């Protein structure tokens, strides 16, 4: 299974995602430039975190309009797995591949710290190996992570919600004001996932935790095992 990590101008978690795929998962991976037009040679696309185009105008807005995003749309339409992490999530919303929008955090500030999330949906390629209801610790690092659903109603899947350590979804466990404590959503089909927490930052024990690895290993087993939810 071959991964593609998209690099927009200003992406800065591209190398971290590349590292996890190549050094921790031991799977082939290549960088995909923002102006490429084909994803024929990859099986899973990662839109990494960072500050594409400086987060100027709106986080993810300009990246969503680059050439590669047309290819990502096609790739997703064919049912292939696409994951957007942090800025990648913002790009997916801006590109219309996921419903809704990410606004500035309630506190307006950038927040960088571990967060607890509860798994709501394990019927996506990226969560297929996770237990529904399980609570995981994943780092967050964002200023624009306050998820808002579209005005005409949410027609996607909630995949992760910020929670307390016992799994209860409380206002106190919501770091940024997200609707429904949303930390990650997927499209209705389930193959496009956007998440604010950074799984690539908690995929090795030396970094203090491995809860994030499950997202990457899930998609590998899903693909290699041929399990299909989509």
């Amino acid at each position, binding site marked *: 299974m071959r991964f593609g990590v998209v690099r927009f*101008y*200003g992406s*800065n*978690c591209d*190398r*971290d995602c590349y*590292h*996890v795929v190549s*050094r921790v998962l031991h799977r082939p991976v290549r960088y995909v430039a923002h102006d490429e037009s084909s994803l024929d040679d990859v099986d899973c696309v990662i839109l990494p*975190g*960072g*500050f594409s*185009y*400086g*987060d*100027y105008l709106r986080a993810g807005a300009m990246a969503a309009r680059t050439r590669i995003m047309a290819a990502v749309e096609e790739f997703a339409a064919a049912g292939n797995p696409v994951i957007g992490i942090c800025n990648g999530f913002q790009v997916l919303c801006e590109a219309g591949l996921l419903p809704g929008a990410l606004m500035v955090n309630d506190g307006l*500030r*950038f*927040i*960088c*710290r571990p967060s607890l999330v509860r798994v709501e949906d394990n019927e996506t390629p990226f969560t297929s190996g996770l237990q529904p209801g399980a609570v995981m610790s994943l*780092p967050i*690092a964002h*200023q624009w992570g306050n998820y808002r659903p579209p005005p005409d109603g949410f027609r996607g899947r909630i995949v992760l919600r910020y929670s307390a350590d016992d799994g209860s979804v409380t206002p106190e466990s919501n770091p940024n004001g997200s609707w429904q404590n949303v930390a990650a959503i997927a499209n209705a089909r389930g193959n496009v996932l956007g998440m604010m927490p*950074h799984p*690539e*930052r908690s995929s*090795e024990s*030396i*970094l*203090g935790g491995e809860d994030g690895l499950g997202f990457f290993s899930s998609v590998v087993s899903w693909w290699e095992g041929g399990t299909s939810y989509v």
Partner: protein
Amino acid sequence: MYDDHPVWEDVGLTREEYEVIRSDLGRAPNGLELGMYGLMWSEHCSYKSSRRHLATLPTEGPRVLQGPGENAGVVDIGEDVAVAFRIESHNHPSAVEPFQGAATGIGGILRDIFAMGARPVALLDSLRFGDPKDPRVRYLFGGVVSGISWYGNCVGVPTVGGEVVFDEAYADNPLVNVMCIGLVEKDRLTRGLAAGEGNAVILAGASTGRDGIHGASLLASREFDEDPGDMRPAVQVGDPFREKLLIEACLEALEGGAVVGVNDLGAAGLTSACSETASRAGSGMWIDVDLVFRREEGMTPYEVMLSESQERMLIVAEAGREEEVLEVFGRWNLDAAVIGRVEDGELLRVFCGEEELASIPVMGLTEGAPDYDRPGLAPRPSRPEPPVGLGMDVDAGRALLELLAHPDMASRAPIFGQYDHMVGTNTVVPPGAADAAVLRVKGTDKGIACVTDGNGYACSLDPRRGAELSVAEAYRNICSVGALPLAVTNCLNFGNPEVEEVMGEFVEVVAGMGEACRRLDTPVTGGNVSFYNETRGKHIHPTPVIGMVGLLEDVSRHATAGFKEEGDEVILLGGDATHLGASAFSRVVAGVDNGPVPPVDYGAERVVGSVCRRGIAAGLVSSAHDVSGGGLAVSLAESAMLSPVGMGATVDLGSIHDPISALFGEEGARILVTCSPGVSESLLEMAGEEECPARIIGRVGGSRLEIGAGDSLHLSVPVDSLSSAWERGLE
């Protein structure tokens, strides 16, 4: 404009300096030339008041690949990997515009690191402000922290450490010192050299505008008496997005092999980048201002040469291969253009098309700058009898809570929580968890530890000892995570050097720092001097900020400060404090603003550090935390608060001379470590081998911190209460 002769005063020079220029050139300089001299001979660029003193610092060591004189110092950590690091101040810009001032400070220090061919992997920020209750101070503090957060987060370099101190002395002159660390393969190490006749001089990155003209000579090299409003044109806006592209493009261009040298454009812009690179290589150079891409119309050559526009780099490329370099920048959507050539000879020549506008001996601009032996009034450090216990009848528990809630000691989470400290996935020990940050070095088993430390308060009482203490504390912090201290970079923040009292302090601080670095085997590989931190005749505390890096051979063998397991034994490496001189307790609790600053016992520092490192490397140590601000009691409290579930400890100091001094005194080299009961003996044995004082003083467990001595219990506070005081202190 260039022939509209500005007088020497306009460029910040003295008449004597002007006369030297005249005689060097054998003629009167024209306006452009004078402007260039003015910048290069400014205090900020020429170090004219500090050079001779900095020359006394120890700069050599077996691991030093690059000492002072380059954009950053570099040390070898083995396996072909080197660490580049440097600290720099952005005090004056931050006083005028805290958000952008601090942000562009981050931009500047990053460029010094990737100019060396190193990929920036970590940032640290050392900050000083006035009383946080003052709304203006809150505004400066808030602005600086969000500026660092914005720029650092956007470029994707984690901010992993730093420090903040609040003291009236900085009310009008906040200090913003930022440090950057980069990693480079040894054979990729690049220098700021404009070598090789005919090689191309390429300017890359942002276009040149009118921003920041005379920033170095006016903002950073003068007192700050004027209304900051007057300085506003010099304020610059940062563009971290473009900087991120510039990092990637420069590192990629270097891979191609066509690059001979790289230099950032910082203070004094093109003038400085051209003259420094030519001077280091012993070359001449010509450039044509017409070839410099600009963002504003109608800029004069003078403005182009003096502009301090951000996010620009100078690249010297092999003749005939310039296209390769230009192509890389183009791919990163950055402008780049050949603006001149290296040439033989000794002149920096500036053209506008065919017309030669300036012709100055390169060395005259750089090495030829004035070198002053400014008179200094030797400080008379206050060294009264050390206060013992202060004769006070204090409730130690209440004093501890008061200390923890003090802005200088309270939790820094509200600050580092705004910094992305994890991007890059190298951060093994994040901010707040230990005495130093630890980063792994991918592709090896190694780790690097880094820290900044400064104690302006101690320096104000006793400049020499205060400086020694600052180095010792950095050293101890590096040892506490298990790393071997390697080398030092430093930022020397002072008032006006033309004031004898300030110059006297400066000389003492440099002497103290040099002594400490020699005794602790941590050579100085670079740094920065910031003078003129003075408003309306009031100058800041002499404030040397030490940036130190250390090495862990096995990064998985490191320690953090929080208690780990119930039942672990608490071991004190080092002796007991016997007095309260220059302590946070005497200042905060007793309101006594006096010394003496305890002297550094280098022998003790070395053995305590060594035993701690060896214990950690051998896997004997569960947690380690040094004793510094607030003394033993604060140190124990921090380890309790940082434990996973608010684990307390019961400590019995045995027979001590004076309990308050033992609890809150700050003298001496001390590190608190915890070990599981089975292995304490091995650690004590190690200590014995090195003749390091060490003893078991207590046990981790329970939900309270209890400290007693023999039969008397001096303090018993629930960890929860400690935490709530500590966590709210900075709000």
